[in-house]
């Protein structure tokens, strides 16, 4: 009976898997595992290089006595939409960043973005932070906060926490780290 013949043939083909009819060359599971192990090794090597390279870059470009890094995070449970951030130091634009959905989601999950790294001499400086976004109710907002900070001889890390600017409170907080 042809139907039985066809079905048997088809089931055999289906059950035999994708590599059953390999012709000239076969790849063994051991080959695949060995290759996978080597890929893991090279990943480890390149990670180590990346780490050393970052340290070298930091030493070369941002020496510890002048280094200033600015980090951005969003307050827990605040579901406002952050569109962009602008950072000015001593009246000059340091950086601005427009957030993608993925980046905003990463911030909302507790990630902290290093938005700027630069060099400043020791002493007092002015930081201006502007955030642009949309509130839960759809209202667009644009808020700026001005802060002072002192740069010492050690690297300076400034943590900016952005929150829903509603309810009359400031949505921008800056802390020393």
């Amino acid at each position, binding site marked *: 009976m042809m139907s039985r013949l066809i079905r048997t043939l088809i089931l055999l*083909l289906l059950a035999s898997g994708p590599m059953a009819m390999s012709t000239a060359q076969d790849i063994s599971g051991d080959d*695949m595992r060995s290759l996978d192990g080597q*890929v893991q090794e090279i990943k480890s090597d390149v*990670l180590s290089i990346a780490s050393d390279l970052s340290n070298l870059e930091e030493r070369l470009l941002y*020496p510890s006595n002048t280094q200033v890094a600015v980090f951005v995070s969003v307050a827990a449970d605040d579901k406002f939409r952050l569109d962009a951030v602008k950072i000015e130091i001593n009246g000059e634009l340091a950086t601005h960043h427009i957030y993608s959905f993925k980046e905003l989601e*990463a911030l909302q999950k*507790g990630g902290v973005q290093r938005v700027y790294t630069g060099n400043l001499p020791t002493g007092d400086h002015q930081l201006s932070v502007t955030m642009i976004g949309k509130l839960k109710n759809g209202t667009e907002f644009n808020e700026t906060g001005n802060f002072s900070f002192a740069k010492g001889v050690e690297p300076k890390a400034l943590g900016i926490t952005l929150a829903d600017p509603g309810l009359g409170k400031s949505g921008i907080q800056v802390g020393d780290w």
Partner: protein
Amino acid sequence: MGRAPFSGIGLLLFASLALSPSRSDELKDLYFGEALYYAHQGYFFEALERLDTEVKQHDELDEPELDTLYYHIDAAEFSLGDFELRYRMHHRAGRAITAVLEGAVDEIVRNDAAYRLARIHFQKGQMADAMRALERIDGKIPESIRDDIDFLRANIYLAEGKPAASVDVLKRLQNSKNFGGFASYNLGIAYLQDGQRQAALEQLDRAGQVATDDPAELAIRDKSNLVLGTILLEDGEFDNAMPFLNRVRLDGPFSNQALLSAGWASLSAEKYERAVVPWGILARREVTDGATQEAMLALPYAYGKLDVHGRAAVHYGRALDAFGAEVDKLDQSIESIREGRFLQALIREEIRKDKDWVIHLRALPETPETYYLMELLATHDFQTGLQNYLDLADLRRKLHSWQASFDSFDDMVDIRHDHYEPLLSVVDTQFRELDSRMRLRIEQHKMLVKRRDDLLTTPRPEFLATREEQAVLAQIEHIETQLKGAESPFEGSLLQRTHRLKGMLMWTLETEYHDRLTRFDQNLRGLDNAMAVLQQQYDQYVRVRQAATHSFEGYEMPVSRLRARVSVSAQKVELLMARQGHVLEVVAINELMARRGRLESYRDKARFALADSYDRATQAQARSDEP
């Protein structure tokens, strides 16, 4: 008929790993937060690079409790293992998670680590190790992974051939929010493996009726119905199989297989006209699909059974044309892969930005092979190889960009050297002169401080005499010495006068001693402040001087070493990419050749059946023409 179709059913393992620390914890270390920022976006290389460096720096500290990472070190080490796992570095992930397990960590963290270690072993097919890791879970379990642990345990039991044990665990998961649908299906499979056919059928029936609008659960519901229908079909219960096959959605991922099986169920029950309906639908679908190709042969066969040989011949003819075209397409695809176009398409940036990029590969005109590789692309081994290839391509991009940056480093260092070197020699000469003067003043200051401190414990009024008073006192003492050896008749009265003068002076010194000491102390304090400013300026100069030197000195060796390491790694990556790419190409070509072999076989059958149908149609025509 055997159980071959179930070899492909497989078990469903629902992956959900949570990142630490949780959002509600207060983050004290910005750099850990930065690693999380990358990890939450799926950039695990960047996340690992940052967190690895941060953890290493923390470990090297003499007083780690003063470091901000101290508050998160357990979570950070745990996350390292997690990121490594997600970056498909199972060897390192296993080591990192084992280290967490063996460290003095919180019970919840340890249990979470044990679960993740078990997952690694499970993915590597090491079931005994996976179960041992799960057995280390004791005490408080994080709520978020409670069901995950049970689901994994059930799957390990199934993989170990202990379906009865799996049944017990899966029963508990039937109302799980995350695993309800999956556990329901897996329970049916567990019953089946345990030989409890009736229980399996009832369970799959339940799993096939789950009310949900979640796409994943809808798919598993379809799969439950398809499996149940197929079991009944294989057991000859054709009519009973139909309702379950009909439950499978027409637009779901198991629709084609369900339509095919529905056709076979009707045909086997000798209800040929009913078999024509699902096969008719299926035969018009995407021709590269295996079920569609089978339906293209089965449909005319059913028409033949209905004695509609003319229509059967038409469909066999269509099938013959389609199979021929597909064989040609497969030949082109095999050639295309051999020319390297498949690998080129895989690493195209714009394709990979979309999460459904594998699907979109099909739309690329230059990669016809991907039409036939969808099933292959979904297999674990091929996925591992493919991900490795893509990871290697990313590493290659990184390494090439680093290679280019070394020249910039060299330029930067040279420019700084040329700028600072002539300046520094002049500055250093001036500084040496100032430095010696400053050291002298520092010594003088130290001496004065010592004197003040001595005067506080042992009062010495003469030490606070003014310059004039000191001169007068010295003159009086000189006169006294002279008078003592003079043998003059006025000696007595003169000595008396000098004593009186000395007494007056000493009176002043004694009575004004405290005021003078106070003024001395005040002046010294003023000097302390001036010395502190001086020291500050001195330190600042030294730092700036050091920074100037450090901006161009000491880079040659590290840059040169890094350049060499990058170069060696780039070569290794090229080699591994070539090998991994070759493996992917070979596997893909093997798959396409298998599909071509099957299509050629179908084509032969279609050709034979077409001739047969013409004969029968002709004979039927002749019979009908007979008076």
